[in-house]
Structure formats: C-alpha cells, structure tokens
C-alpha cells in the first residue's frame, strides 16, 4: 500500500467519504472489470461493484494491510460476484435472458448477429460448467487482465497453480465446446503468461 493509499484508508476509517471517493476512483476500473468478467453483464457488474465498495467501506476498519489494497478489493469483488450470481441463478430467468438476447440480435443485424449470440451462449454455458477455481482464474486473467502473480495473490495460491488452472481451463473449454474433437495434448494458453 502506498503512503497516499495508507493516508486515504486512515481518512476513510475516520468516516471521510471524500477520501473513499478517491479510492473508488483509483480502483473503479479494476473492480468493474473483475465484476464484469465474473458476471458477464454490465448491469450485474455495476451492482457487484457497488456491493464491493460498500463492503470495503465497512471492512476498512478491519483491513490490516497484509495484502495490497487492490488484492483485497479484488477478493471482495469475487465474493460479491459469487453472492450476486447465487441470488439470480434461477433457471427461468436465465432462459429469459437467452431468448431476449436472440430477439435483440435478430432485430439488430440479422443472421450474423444471431451467430455471434449463439457462440457467446455456447461459451457462457461452457464456462459455467467449469469448476469455480478454473472459472475464476480464467475470468481474472482473460477478463480482468490481471497477471499470474496478481491472481495468485488474490486467490492465495502459488503462481504454478494459476498457470495450471489456466491451461487446464482452456483445455476443458475446448472439450466442452467441441466434444467431437479428438483429445490430444493439453493446450497451453496462446497468450503469453507473464508473471
């Protein structure tokens, strides 16, 4: 935590909302991207981000600074997204969303858009079938654009575990999306994994 952040945290602990606004400014982008990567919807992401910062405001009293502020906020966002998704997991709602997406896509620009929506829905379904640790790791890496080191700190696991989850997650997704594809050597993420 930088000196400036430590001062802001101290001011927040004294109830200074302007100081908290400065923290929200600083971490809005990261928290929103994390929330979006985990929920896949801008409205849900906004709600999750608000939940995250409200929890942060209340939790700053107990924040000891053992982890970086960014890491702590990302963990709060993960928890907030998990709670949010649990609340809205009703199948009927999900089906309604899928149908709505198709209708909107058809209205927008016809067949090509519908194909994109189908791809996205296939991908969404496949991602949802991944075990939570793989899903979270993929979301943080490909969605929130965190480094392997940052993900390891956030999820409290070794960097090697993060790399394993990334390669395994991609391989599982390929299997889920194309079950006829012959199983082969586990695919490595094409993207360079920088620490």
């Amino acid at each position, binding site marked *: 935590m930088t000196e400036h952040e430590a001062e802001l945290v101290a001011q927040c*602990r*004294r*109830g*200074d*909302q302007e100081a*908290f*606004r400065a923290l*929200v*400014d600083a971490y*809005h*982008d990261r928290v*929103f*991207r994390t929330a*979006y*990567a985990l929920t*896949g919807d*801008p409205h849900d*992401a*906004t709600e999750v*981000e*608000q939940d995250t*910062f*409200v*929890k942060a*405001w*209340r*939790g700053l*009293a*107990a*924040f*000891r600074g053992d*982890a970086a502020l960014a890491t*702590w906020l990302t*963990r*709060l966002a993960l*928890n907030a997204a998990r709670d949010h998704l649990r609340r809205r997991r009703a199948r009927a709602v999900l089906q309604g969303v899928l149908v709505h997406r198709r209708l909107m896509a058809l209205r927008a620009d016809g067949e090509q858009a519908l*194909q994109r929506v189908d*791809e*996205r829905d*296939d*991908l*969404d379904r496949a*991602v949802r079938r991944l075990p939570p640790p793989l899903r979270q790791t*993929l*979301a943080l890496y*490909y*969605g*929130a*654009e965190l480094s392997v080191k940052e993900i390891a700190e956030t999820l409290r696991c070794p960097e090697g575990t993060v790399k394993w989850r990334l390669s395994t997650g*991609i391989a599982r*997704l*390929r299997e889920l*999306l*194309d079950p006829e594809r012959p199983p082969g050597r586990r695919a490595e*993420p*094409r*993207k360079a994994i920088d620490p």
Partner: protein
Amino acid sequence: MIRHERGLEELLEARLRPREVPPTESVWWGVRRRLGAHPRRARRVLLRAGLALAMLLALGAGLALASPDLRAWVGGVAVGLRGSSHGVASLEPAPPFTVLQPSALPAGWTLVANGYNPGPGRSGAPGWSGVGSTAPSAVSVASRVAGQDVPPATRELAQARAQDLLGNGAEAALALVYADPTGQLIEVVERSAAGKALPAGRATTVGSQPAVVALRDGQEVLAFVRQDTLVEVSGSAGRDDRLRLAASLQPAALAPVDATAAGQAPPTPPAWTRVPLSSRPGAQEPPHATREAIVRQCGWDAALGSSALGEAMQQVHCAARLAAASPDDQGAWAYSRTSWRAAAQQLGTDAAGPPGATQVYLVQLDVSERGGSVVVLDATTAQPYLVARLQPVTP
C-alpha cells in the same frame, strides 16, 4: 457450436471484457446512496451510536457514559444491556447460550462497544416485525472508559462493527468489540452452538480446544465452541492479541438488568425508559416534510430492509427527522416496523391514516423520559402519516 475461425482465447477475451467501463460517477452515486443519503450528513448518520434491527437505540455522541448501559421500552418490547469497560453485566431477555467473556484482557485493551440481539420470538411481543427481523436488538458504545475519552474514530468504528456483527436478527447473538489505544479492534460474536458446525477452514486450537481459522471477506475469523456457545473472534488486531483474548474467554454469570452493581451510578440522564408510548400522548402535528422532499433528501429504497439493514435504518432515521423537523438530534432513537393499525394502537390515537394493514415505520426520536417525538411513515413509499410529541414521564 463455436466457430473455430475465431480463437477460443480471443472469444474469451471478447466475452469477459466489457466493451466499455462506465464512468466512476455512475458507480459512486449508488455507493454514496448506500453509505448515507446526504453526503454531509452521512458520516454523522452512519456512525450514530446504537443502531438496532427492529428496535434501535442510539446513544448520541454528546452523551458521555461511563459504561455502555442501555435499556429501552418502545411500543411493548424491552431489550436491555448493562455493562462496563470490563464486560457485560446483564442482558435482557436472557440469551439462549452461555455468555463468555475474557477473564483477562491484553494490556491496554477495553470493551468499547457491545450489541445484543435476543433473536426472534424472544421479545414477548408477537407481531413485531422489524426490518428483516422479528426481534429487537440494541447496540451501545462507551464514549469514556476508565477515565479516558474513547477516540471518536474508534468509538464510531466499534459501533458500526457491533451493528454488522449482530447479523440480520435471525438468531440471538451477542457482539463484543474491544479496542486498544491505537484503535485496533478485536471483535467477538457469540451465538448458540446448537445444530451448528464450525466453518470450513484451517484447524487450530484455542487453549487445548479444537478451533478453526476461516476466511470471511478476506479476513481471518477464529471459530470455536465452548460449552453451548459458538464463538467467532476477528478484527484488525494482531493474531497474537486475538488468540490471547480468545483463550481467556470464560463463562460469565449475568445479573438481572435492574440490579445495579455496588458503587455503580445509574446512567444520567436516563438512557432508557420503560413507559409505553400510549401513556405519553402529546400534541399531534402535520408532517413537516412531504414524501417527495424525504425521497429527495434521504433517498428511499424500500427493498433495503431485506438486504441492508444498516442502510435501511439510515433512511428511516433521516426520513423521520425531516418529517418531525427534528434538528440535529444528539439523543437516542428507536424504530420498529409494524402495521398502521398496530402503530395507532401503540400510540393510543385514532388519527386518520392509511388502511390498517399498511406497513409503516414507527420511529421515536430523542428517546428519553423528558419528551421526544414519534413519527409514523409508510414503509414502502416513505409517505409520512403522523407526527406526535411525547409528554414527559411524570414520576
């Protein structure tokens, strides 16, 4: 089926990354509303002493107490807390678990806030339905301990933590918040252990007893069972201090609330009253603020009650003060959620109002035996229905 002319990783990036990130202002607006309706008032309101779930008493910052005593009687429900900087001495009604308190505190540590929720169905007042809760609870905080003022920041944080630790009122709970001179906190929550298992986490011991260190919202929580009580210890203090305090927790014998310990002066002025509102009728007034003005200044989200109790309480407090034209009150306040019919009965009034089953908030401002006022407003729309001044209690 995914078309493989587009790489899977590109698809993932396209799916998992937002097309655009909204401006901070749009998020901040929602966050600020949930932190407190009015930015200049937010700090005061957020940190006002003594929040509760169905019935709430707040000991204002101007009320310097030597010990965090609290007792209230609002509309037929009584909850009592009596204690000192050494610990809780009395709880009313009695909790359904053994109360544990530290036999020795780490050097420099004192009890600065405590909160008690007796749980649903224990108030003896059927029909009371609080904000997401069926039971009243109370939180109190000491502003002066052992001859020393508790720093406002520590006091405010301790209050807020005690309020959060009590949870949603679904079960009886006792929250104890200790602080050291640097403002670090140790938080202890006690509940009945019946039918509960320790949370998942790393196994450890407290004393020689099995315990678990679990992570909750990124914070370590030490959980263990002693006698019939499930104990959770957390806070910003170092692990050694938390462990030391946890290891010293012992069963404590509590006295009836009315029993005043030898040499302990009763709170002055009285921070509690046991006189029902219906015996204190005063002049009724038209509300001093319209619903529109209340919504504009306080914000109003009727759904908050089921998801964010603290925020719902801030809304209700803000709305009641506007409706009653109450200045920046420094006194205690209390509220409950009930029907208009029940509220009118409790106030002993036949004033015109909405249909009897309409859910309302019955809010008492400046809870004391010297006066104060009562506001009734719609729990869904914030429409104020009634403002009445209370007569002082005559001996």
